[in-house]
């Protein structure tokens, strides 16, 4: 897959590490480019509703998606384009959901980041922060009831989301049941406009772990290699039966809360600090430095991914839009228990 010849520095032991890194980098790149495409479609008025990007969070996110195996469970959040792709989401599904295509997994009923395929262990978030964690717990419990072992469930949250009662109840629930849950918190310094100082008062978010009796991990979210290692280790621990793992990654959101937001409130000092580094650039430099890839291959990858994205967008733009007259307008699986009265005709 990697198109550069192994550099002298790359020993035999380094090869898997390199492969993993390169694989992750390529997904990050794709995620960034796809996010940028969504942003430009948004600016062009081609997307209804909000657009939420993961800029600056790709290293962490890809590490989560890539640490999971088929059969695992993943409930990503709004800034997880990279993790979604790494877990197996297709570009087409992402574009279809943003554009509201009836052929996408949400069929135009739900949109943007609210997408998933529950049957494939890929859970579609609802908007209420913290609400997906217990759903992952339940999926893991379900597996346990069925005697299926070995699977891990991962889910992502912002530091703002840790203030929800749902976060607390579900992490505690996972701890009591000793579920293989990996809860990944991206402390990106802001919840919308609210700085972390107005969100929690503990010295470090990871200090919460001890109060639940779960393992805590802290990681530099701008450093892909660190993310791969920390998340990989946490997933392995969970899989091995060590119970829930809480990962807190430190980084900065490098975009607005959504594309409608210019994020003028972000402290410039933070942008200049190590937290403000762009994980994609850092990873690219690392690649080049280690000669795990050269500039040309990176350009090739980029071009290739842009092509893939443009193709997907072109396909979706030719697809029909949802037809309200073909909708069954039924919220129940039990057809015979539906009601169709006093509604909009």
């Amino acid at each position, binding site marked *: 897959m990697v198109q550069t010849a192994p550099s002298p520095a790359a020993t035999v032991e380094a090869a898997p590490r390199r492969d993993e890194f390169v694989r992750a980098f390529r997904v990050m790149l794709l995620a960034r480019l796809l996010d940028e495409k969504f942003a430009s479609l948004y600016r062009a008025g081609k997307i209804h509703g909000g657009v939420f990007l993961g800029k600056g969070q790709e290293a962490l996110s890809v590490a989560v998606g890539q640490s999971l195996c088929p059969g695992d469970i993943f409930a990503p959040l709004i800034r997880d384009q990279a993790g979604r792709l790494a877990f197996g989401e297709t570009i087409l599904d992402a574009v279809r959901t943003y554009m509201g295509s009836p052929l996408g*997994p*949400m069929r135009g*009923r*739900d949109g943007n980041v*609210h997408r*998933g*395929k*529950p*049957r494939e262990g890929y*859970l*579609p978030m*609802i908007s*209420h922060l913290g*609400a*997906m*964690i*217990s*759903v*992952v*717990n*339940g*999926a*893991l*419990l*379900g*597996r346990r*009831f*069925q005697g299926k072992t070995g699977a891990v469930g991962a889910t992502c949250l912002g530091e703002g989301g840790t203030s929800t*009662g*749902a976060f607390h*109840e*579900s992490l*505690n*629930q996972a701890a*009591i049941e000793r579920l293989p849950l990996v809860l990944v918190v991206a402390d990106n310094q802001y919840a919308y406009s609210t700085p972390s100082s107005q969100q929690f008062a503990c010295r470090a978010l990871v200090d919460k772990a001890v109060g639940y009796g779960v393992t805590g991990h802290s990681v530099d979210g701008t450093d892909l290699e660190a993310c791969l290692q920390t998340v990989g280790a946490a997933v392995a621990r969970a899989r091995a039966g060590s119970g829930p793992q809480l990962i807190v990654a430190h980084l900065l959101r490098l975009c607005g809360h959504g594309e409608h937001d210019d994020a003028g409130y972000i402290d410039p000092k933070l942008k200049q600090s190590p937290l403000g580094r762009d994980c994609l650039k850092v990873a690219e430099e690392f690649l080049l430095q280690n000669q795990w890839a050269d500039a040309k291959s990176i350009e090739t990858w980029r071009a290739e991914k842009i092509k893939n994205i443009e193709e997907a967008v072109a396909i979706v733009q030719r697809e029909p839009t949802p037809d309200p007259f073909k909708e069954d307008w*039924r*919220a*129940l*699986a*039990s057809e*015979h*228990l*539906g*009601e169709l*009265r*006093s509604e909009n005709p």
Partner: protein
Amino acid sequence: MSITYLEAIREAQARALADDPRVYIYGQDVGAFGGAFKATKNLAQEFPGRVLNAPISEDAIIGSAVGAAIEGMRPIIEMQFADFSTVGFNQIVNQAATLFWRTQVPCPITIRLPFGGTSGSGPFHSQCIEAIYAHYPGIIVLTPATVEDAYSMLLEAVAIDDPVIFCEHKYLYYHLKADRLPTEAMPVGKARIARAGRDLTIVAYSAMVHEALAVAEELVSEGAEIEVVDLRSVKPLDTDTVIASVARTGRLLCVGEAWPWGGVTAEVIARVATEGFGLLDAPPQRLNAKDTPVPYHPNLWSTHRPTARSIAVAARNLLGL
């Protein structure tokens, strides 16, 4: 042999656990203890590993049920009291209720809500909140009024591929007895003519069915034949049966133990008025609890909710007696 409404609920759960390996029970104190009301008595012992105590975390309890349902399980969740479901509200109305519509993956979870007033239970252990769930799309809300329905509807609830709010009335738990469990049952979604009559239709559900039946009995001596419709399920609501009854009687009184604004009685009257207007010989009437929290002292409590006494007054008014 005789079996109470509460025992019927236990038996239905025992049978569901026995018949279907996908069923499990989760809730506070439902394990070895058998639940605050003993609705899961001995089930943890009879079905090891399938009846789990939960922490005091209603949000996570419901959320986890949705996750398990996605994986093919059919959880039965016990809320200790219906009133506490308000802290699990979001997971019910936004997570469970939307799953199928959003993803085409069914969400077969049954949430048992011990609900309704009992004397001395006060504002937070007496509420009738079926309407707030029925208002949301994607949820089925059942309100069994008899021992037989408690049993058969709970079994059906577990089999239904959608989230079911199962409202079991705490007053009926011990007060209602039957000789045996039913072997066949009306399906969910159908209302029942609890008593036939031709002068007035009283539509009721859950504990109020029994108050209505008492009134029907009482007013016989005054020459009135009252038909009592037991809704059984408030969502879906069997408008056809209600309207057919009103077609026979021409008069409608709808009784609910819940608060007035937007409750079952509003929905029933709105349906009859819009779809069966011409059948009404008199303005339809409704009777609800008073629009305050449920009071603690029995003197107040028995005035707060409709009773045979107040229903009889309303019925006589409607009948011109």
